[in-house]
């Protein structure tokens, strides 16, 4: 029972040994060291400015290509790339940044290399995306350089997002004219349709009815005028007296192959929303459309068509 030491001495010894152990681990494991520094507040939390090159250009790339495996869901290699602080903390082996750092090295490896990122045949970063990351790393991987000041950056290409729709909103927008539309769709089957499932706007394709469609039919559609945005009257029997100016929402109007003349111009002038007009094969003289042209309306088929 000799060699006993006091409890205090033992506690001190344990503290010392544990401390040395942690110090050794920090020295051997930069990732662990970074965590300890951040947890203990030895290192200030890093935050990137909202308009910084990092936030605007780099972070979306990490989100899209990396954060699935290096983020909240999983942190492979103990690396997370879903926040500026985490990016700076690095992974199991510490810092991944730097111009020749692990991050850039791994994302530029040939896809056949088993260490290449993203792995498993996931699409590699494009040349432009790599350029963005290279520029950011070369500038010290900072979070305070405004995006606008990085001149050599490739043009920003935003991924296409599928428009999401809210069926209740659409139904609400459609409700005021729904009964009228149902009635007219029965009378003109196949001619009137919503522009899309997400829209209350209508397109009317009277071309399908041909010569059976005339001024009176256009008049009949006027209750829907607030919602008709595209109107194709090609080859119909509409005349210069057609109630066109009542169609105040129409942006695209096709009159090809109708018997209309310059006399229809005032009615067209009244169509405030008009942006694109097609008059191929009509007798509408170019000069009668001068007003529309001044308004910036695109006009197809004036005078000679094609060539």
């Amino acid at each position, binding site marked *: 029972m000799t060699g006993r030491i006091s409890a205090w001495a033992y506690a001190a010894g344990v503290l010392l040994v544990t401390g040395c152990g942690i110090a050794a681990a920090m020295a051997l494991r930069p990732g662990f060291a970074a965590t300890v520094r951040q947890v203990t507040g030895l290192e200030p939390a890093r935050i990137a400015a909202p308009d910084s090159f990092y936030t605007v250009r780099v972070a979306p790339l990490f989100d899209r290509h990396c954060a699935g495996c290096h983020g909240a869901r999983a942190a492979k290699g103990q690396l997370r790339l879903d926040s500026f602080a985490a990016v700076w903390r690095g992974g199991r082996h510490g810092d991944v940044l730097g111009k020749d750092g692990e991050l850039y090295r791994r994302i530029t490896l040939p896809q056949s290399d088993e260490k290449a990122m993203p792995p498993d045949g996931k699409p590699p970063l494009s*040349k432009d995306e790599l350029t963005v990351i290279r520029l950011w790393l070369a500038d010290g991987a900072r979070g305070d350089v405004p995006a606008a000041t990085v001149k050599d950056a490739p043009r920003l290409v935003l991924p296409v997002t599928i428009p999401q729709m809210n069926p209740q909103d659409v139904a609400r927008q459609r409700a005021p004219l729904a009964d009228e539309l149902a009635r007219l769709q029965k009378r003109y089957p196949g001619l009137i349709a919503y522009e899309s499932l997400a829209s209350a706007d209508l397109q009317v394709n009277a071309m399908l009815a041909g010569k059976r469609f005339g001024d009176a039919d256009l008049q009949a559609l006027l209750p829907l005028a607030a919602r008709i945005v595209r109107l194709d009257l*090609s080859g119909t029997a509409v005349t210069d007296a057609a109630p066109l100016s009542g169609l105040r929402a129409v942006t695209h109007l096709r009159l090809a192959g109708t018997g209309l003349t310059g006399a229809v111009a005032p009615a067209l002038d009244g169509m405030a929303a008009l942006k694109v007009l097609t008059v191929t094969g009509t007798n509408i003289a170019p000069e009668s459309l001068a007003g529309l042209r001044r308004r910036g309306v695109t006009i*197809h088929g004036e005078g000679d068509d094609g060539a």
Partner: protein
Amino acid sequence: MKDPRLLLTDLSRIQAQTRRHFLGWGTGGLGAFFLNAAMTEDARADGPQTLNFARDPATPLSVLPPPFRARAKRVIYLHMGGAPSQLDLFDYKPVLARFHGHDCPQSFLKGKRFAFISGIPKLLGPQFPFRQAGRNGTWISDRMPHLERRLDELCLVKSMKTDQFNHAPAQLLVHTGDPRTGHASLGSWVTYGLGSENQNLPGFIVLVSSGGITANAGKPLWGSGFLPSVYQGVQCRSAGEPVLYLDNPKDVSRAQRRQVLDAVDEINRQTHVQFGNPETVARIAQYEMAFRMQLEASDAMDIRRESPAVLERYGAEPGKTSYANNCLVARRLAERGVRFIQLYHWGWDSHGTPTDEGVNVGLVNRCRETDQPTAALLADLKARGLLEDTLVVWGGEFGRTPMWENRGGQEMAFIGRDHHPSAFTIWMAGGGVKAGLVHGQTDDMGYEIVQDPVEVRDLHATMLYLLGFDHQALKYPYQGLDQKLTGVKPARIIPQLLA
């Protein structure tokens, strides 16, 4: 009390139910039950929305609005079967010209499979002078002088790639999203999803020139695959009867035809009452459409109704079967609200073996046949205000090698290039694509893509997006899988191509 006669009908209907019907309904019912559960799951998971393509079986082609605003309402797809040489038409490679005749570097050959090249082939520079044209000084070969004037309307994609190096599978991939037969073609998907505006014409029309040779993969290129057969492409002819067997037999009047149809319809209706199979209603609808088409199709296909000036611009000659005529017909169909118009012009397979397969012979001829009509179609669509909402796509099934083909180690009689899936050029125009753009880049030899590769499924996803669809949402349950045009691999909508 229920009419006893009705009871009798009920009984006969039950008796008409075979084991197969029952099992079919049973599994269908269970499947629907499961699908319903799966769909609510979907909605909660914020995944692609579930679309309802259900229609009245009597009007299977009725218009369905796209899920979101479409930039293109219809498609004219100009398929250049055989694979045109991008290196002699659009993808200008002056460095390759400099190395013309040198041995192909080993690095090009390692790990590659070729259809015919063997040993060490020689590099083959561009065979025609290139020049810059359009607002952006885009390079184009002198074989396409007419198209050159429309360059500002084109969206050139020089970085298309495929994983198929034989014609039929590659063509199937481009048309159906899968290299094997049995999948629904692009046109079928689009008419399934959107219907067609003109109920008197098929929604998906196929026009074949080049001596009636379609393409290696044949009719499956416009097949409906697992989609209902009513969405398959209908091949029409630009000379003679537009649709075979559509006209009345000799000495049968339209009125007599109507009487026959009425009788057939009545029998079909009775059959439907008895068996309740929706396909019967679809059959009635198809007979009726054929009857309406007798008038409308003849009119739509008849290019004699065009002015001589228009015919001349296209280089069209009524009564012939030609690409030029088909281009003009395509415009007429687009005007009439046909959803998907597919043209085939075969003969771009420039191996250099027979006369008509040389880059210096066949390719020149194909350009001569197609350049003017293609350019005229674009101009005409634009003049008629149709280009805004018509998506025009031009392209083959893969590219051609920067090496001179040496089939069996032999030098070819004519200048030829082998199949090359790693890089090829297509272009799009109109409906929502960025005009005057060149997207993607190949290396100095035109061998591999070095920037912005576009997979066939990416092209499909982009086309569907332009038509108002999320490619993930345009699906059809078949063999336990939600079948999609873009398949199971992730497809990207290419943002740069959008206007």
